């Protein structure tokens, strides 16, 4: 019995969501009085691997194999499942990232495990049960899922569990596996990084624009505000449908669901489908010229005003705040 965490890296670096998942997995190991083993696959430096110990991994398995340098969900799932079996781990934790969503279902099948995708809470294990809360109905609700299988797979929603430092003495071990040819049918041709900006699902602050901004040429102030705050940019569906912004920025029921600490909605009316994807944001700020816009009903802070006047003032105020801080 132990907990295994798959520590996902992007270009050799662990992401914030990985450290959240390690902290979360540590807490589950503590609930069960058991150890936490981390597994990393790909080209990750020794220093970077050791960072996992800061969040509570006691054993760090390093799979560094030329064939496994790039992510292929089928092959990675085989490696992680094999590690779980060899190490006697009955709970496997990973981040519900884009890659995590390709891995979790395959791991669940391989390990004959029930899966909680998009977990937002620690398991409640009272009475010998295993209950985990996840988002459902695209953020309009939460569902409490009971896993009844002996093995369990939990994919944690980014930004839903705080990173906790609990340094443990840890050792890094090389872990080698036999790979099977049929796991490598999908071949990576290239990785295209759109920008070095903050990625939307991981962002702590999101600045989002709607049709109220009138056209793509007006996104300069949205980007400036986002840059100042270290935020990712997002948009409503009609904005991406019109091609003003890429589809990957569309949030809502039929887009990306986000749960940042701060969501700033500018010129967005607050349709039910939009709210679905953003309602688990911790703090919501709305800027809209229509005081009756439904978005104000779910906002924490609001400014009723013209975005073309308010946003430049907000940018100036943040610059001022930064120079004072």
């Amino acid at each position, binding site marked *: 019995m132990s907990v295994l965490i798959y520590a996902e890296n992007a270009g050799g670096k662990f992401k914030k969501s990985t450290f959240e998942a390690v902290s979360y997995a540590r807490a589950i190991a503590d609930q069960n009085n058991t150890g936490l083993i981390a597994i990393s696959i790909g080209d990750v430096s020794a220093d970077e691997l050791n960072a996992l110990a800061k969040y509570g991994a006691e054993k760090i398995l390093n799979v560094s194999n030329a064939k496994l340098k790039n992510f292929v969900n089928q092959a990675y799932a085989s490696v992680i499942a094999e590690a779980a079996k060899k190490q006697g781990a009955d709970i496997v934790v990973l981040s519900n990232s884009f*890659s995590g969503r390709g891995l979790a279902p395959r791991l669940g*099948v391989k390990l004959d495990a029930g899966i909680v*995708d998009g977990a937002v809470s620690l398991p409640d294990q009272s009475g010998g049960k295993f209950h985990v809360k996840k988002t459902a109905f695209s953020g*309009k609700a939460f569902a*409490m899922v*009971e896993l009844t299988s002996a093995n369990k797979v939990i994919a944690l929603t980014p930004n839903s569990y705080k990173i906790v430092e609990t340094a443990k003495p840890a050792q890094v071990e090389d872990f080698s596996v036999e790979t099977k040819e049929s796991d490598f049918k999908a071949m990576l041709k290239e990785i295209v990084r759109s920008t070095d900006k903050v990625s939307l699902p991981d962002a702590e602050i999101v600045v989002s624009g709607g049709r109220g901004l009138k056209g793509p040429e007006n996104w300069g102030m949205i980007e400036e505000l986002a840059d100042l705050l270290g935020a990712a940019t997002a948009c409503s569906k009609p904005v991406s449908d019109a091609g003003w912004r890429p*589809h990957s920025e569309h949030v809502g029921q039929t887009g990306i669901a986000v749960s940042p600490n*701060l969501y700033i909605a500018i010129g967005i009316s607050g349709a039910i489908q939009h709210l679905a994807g953003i309602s688990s944001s911790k703090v919501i700020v709305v800027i809209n010229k229509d005081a009756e816009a439904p978005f104000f009903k779910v906002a924490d802070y609001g400014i009723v005003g013209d975005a073309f006047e308010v946003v430049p003032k907000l940018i100036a105020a943040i610059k001022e705040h930064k120079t004072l801080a």
Partner: protein
Amino acid sequence: MKILVCISNVPDTTTKITFTDNNTQFNTNGVQFILNPYDEIALARAIELTEGTGTVTVINVGEANTEPTIRKALAIGATDAVRINAKPHDAWYVAYQIAQYIKANPFDLVLTGRESIDYNGSKVAGMLGELLDLPSVSIIKKLEVDGDKATVEREIEGGKEVLTIPFPFIAGTAESVAEPKIPNMRGIMSARTKPLTIVEPVEVKTNSEIISYETPAPRGQVKLVPADDAAKLVELLHTEARVI
């Protein structure tokens, strides 16, 4: 080319979500059900890829009440349909049933939506891949066919990956893969007579159960800041909300 598109029957996007029986059951009273928006995209791409040269079968795990959604998919342009006659207990149950069907009736390509908008698992595609020992990509942004293989773009945080995959494989489509198609009059007429096969489910052990639901805690009253006092907002976000 033979393509299978997995379709789910989900509450309309405008549905206000409520629960009954002490928050253990989703309240379907007055709820309109629709074809999952992402599955519409999978279907649209499948129709484009097979135009005149292949077939598109849609499959749904559901009880008789999902037939309007299946007929909608036929009206949009699917060739034929299969309904596995069972309540879709969870993604595992659904994937297992569909995998059994595919084992007996192979396809060149199996498409799902990137997720269902009710349970949002993004699980069915990966589970099918594992059950059939085939490659799977859970969320694709683009799908182009090139002889006996396809080029797909996979979404990653802050970018994308380009992959080539030989057929057969499984993929879950996001919105940029295709524009949804609207059924025309001829489609609607012909949908009534297109074949719909009903298959009985096989038995499968379940390993997860939804035991209750809750809705997000309501927020307090919004604090309005005057439009000319952006500095006040910054101060509140800094000292009160502590988010900047």
